[in-house]
């Protein structure tokens, strides 16, 4: 008999060492998340995946599943906290969805829709960050970075290139490019890198692609992010 725990009353089997979010995914249960990616070690930074385990809040992407745990996830209380986190992410950067070419493909936007976020609620920071368009085929729009570190992890752990890094701390944390000039064009980054395929938002942009996909045919036009079939699909960039 496999070991099990429950999420919102549903019995979920798990294997030793699996995290809650991993077991939940296998059982078809969606837990909102942004910095988690099934192919990478968890980072535990965005806290969107927060659940209650036996009454205590914890990040489900880092917490190992345990026998007979009682996990709450899809509750008004937790979703309201997730909504607040999403709102904070929106105001920290410049996320103007109507003019963003990742609209309809963006996990932050799709998560905000899924959580019923109607307004940003907080005052916008309106940071002013220049784009890095120095690479012939790739562009970085730092205005949209949510500091999930996925491209950092992908470049370091999969591509073995270490092109990206997060630097400074707290509210000052930012994404940088590891080259003398600080420009992507001066690195050995390639559009086929894993790092090019993991950004949940619209920082990593394939040049000259723009709004090629019409509204109505974009990933999250077709099904909400809570539909786990998205995660099985290959990233289209």
């Amino acid at each position, binding site marked *: 008999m496999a070991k099990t725990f429950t999420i919102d009353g549903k019995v979920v089997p798990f294997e030793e060492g699996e995290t809650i979010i991993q077991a939940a995914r296998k059982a078809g249960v969606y837990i909102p998340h942004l910095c988690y990616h099934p192919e990478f070690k968890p980072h535990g930074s965005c806290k969107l995946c927060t659940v209650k385990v036996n009454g205590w809040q914890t990040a489900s992407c880092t917490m190992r599943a345990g026998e007979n745990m009682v996990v709450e996830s899809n509750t008004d209380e937790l979703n309201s906290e997730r909504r607040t986190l999403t709102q904070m992410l929106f105001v920290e950067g410049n996320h*103007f969805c*109507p*003019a963003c*070419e990742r609209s309809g493909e963006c996990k932050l936007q799709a998560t905000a829709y899924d959580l019923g976020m109607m307004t940003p609620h907080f005052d916008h920071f309106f940071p002013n960050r*220049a*784009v890095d*368009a*120095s690479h012939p085929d790739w*562009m970085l729009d730092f205005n949209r970075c949510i500091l999930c570190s996925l491209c950092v992890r992908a470049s370091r752990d999969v591509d073995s290139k270490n092109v990206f890094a997060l630097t400074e701390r707290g509210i000052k944390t930012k994404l940088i490019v590891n080259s003398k000039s600080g420009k992507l064009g001066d690195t050995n980054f390639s559009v086929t890198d894993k790092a090019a395929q993991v950004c949940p938002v619209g920082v990593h*942009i394939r*040049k*000259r*692609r*723009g*709004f*090629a*996909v*019409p*509204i*109505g045919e974009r990933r999250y036009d077709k099904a909400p992010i809570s539909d786990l079939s998205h995660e099985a699909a290959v990233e289209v960039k």
Partner: protein
Amino acid sequence: MTYNLETAQNPEKLRRVAIEPVSRVEGHGKVTILLDDDNKIHQVRLHIVEFRGFERFIQGRPYWEVPVLVQRLCGICPVSHHLAAAKAMDVIVGAKKLTPTAEKMRRLMHYGQMLQSHALHFFHLSSPDLLFGFESDVGRRNIVGVINAYPEIAKQGVLLRKYGQEVIRLTSGKRVHGTGAVPGGINKSLSDDERAYLLKDAYQMITWARDAVHLAKKLHNQDPALYNSFGVFRSNFLSLVGHKGEMDLYHGNLRARDDMGNLIFDGVDYANYRTYIEEETKPWTYMKFPFIKSLGKKDGWYKVGPLARVQNCNFIDSPLAEIERRDFVDYAGNTPMHAPLAFHWTRMIEMLHSAEMIKALLQDDDIQGTELMTSGPRQTDGVGLIEAPRGTLFHHYRVNDDDVVTMANLIVSTTNNNQAMNEAVRHVARRYLHGRELTEGLLNHIEVAIRCFDPCLSCATHALGKMPLTVELVDPDGTLVHSLSRNA
């Protein structure tokens, strides 16, 4: 062509009246009038209140984003900006000639925009003045009043607009902030269902649009003394015309005529617009004053928009609108008509033309084609012009080797009409306000004159939103004497 009343001799001795902001136009407008103790007018200026420096905002952005980004300029005619920017970016990506499907989908989108914008302006914003009179009861002089008194007309206005919005939605993906036009083409064509859905009502729209032309004509004919003279001033005209001299609202060459209808220039490739048009800045307003270089600042300003386009072209390429154009030209006596109120009549002729073009495009199988994109050798400088509902709209960009915009210059329709609107306001002030006690009805005359041009102050100043109207009478020492307010 006169600059009288632009600057008073001794402004410090005069009383200031501000109409702020002008209602039932889009955006923030303000008219200031300086009066002396006998209510004699010394200075009249149309001001634009806000400025957002959009050109600078676009700098540093990748070029393919711009056609979508510029829709933030204006909540009223975003589609015109979308298409003008896309046309400029076509040049950047070397797409000299779009595929038939791409060009026709873009045209369809544009005529949808024309239809909805002209319907909005005529029925919602202007018909209250025209149907009830400029000094009629202010409580009734609005769209609700029209709905009560003329329910059938109001209904047609609403449905014409809605139809135009549906055309926009199905060509661009959304009613506002669509993404249809992309550098070098479009991202979708019409499906069977979409085409059938739009075709279903296309004939009805033509009929209603024709009725609207007749209504505008009737209003004109009922009171020619008012309609032909109200705020009238002479000026040059500027617009695009098609290669055969036909009205073409989407593409063509620049043509300018003088106040008598003689050509100033014709067949000008708009990529060279800077050789022909220059922009002047003035210390009292953020809005620029464009003029035709060869005529100079003083005489080179011009009118754009429906009144210019209907009279600038040789003919209209759709049968019913052409009949109406001839009617208009006959009425004008084969000499250019300059009366601002004639904007309404010509605007409705264009609405009819747009409805006819929508029907024709929907009957064309290219609208369902699959060849959506073209490209060629990459360029660094791109100019895109389009005849937006309010007049000629210029978009000009430079893009560097990294694909980032380094320079943007926009001349929007309302800016093109800037001097003309100021003139209209001065003429009305001189004729109706001079030496009289100011009332709401009299001040509305000023606004009626502005509204003829359908100014989109929102995009002229790159500001968003509408505000209620406040009129303030201020004494020479700055004390508020009297104030009137109403909601937009």
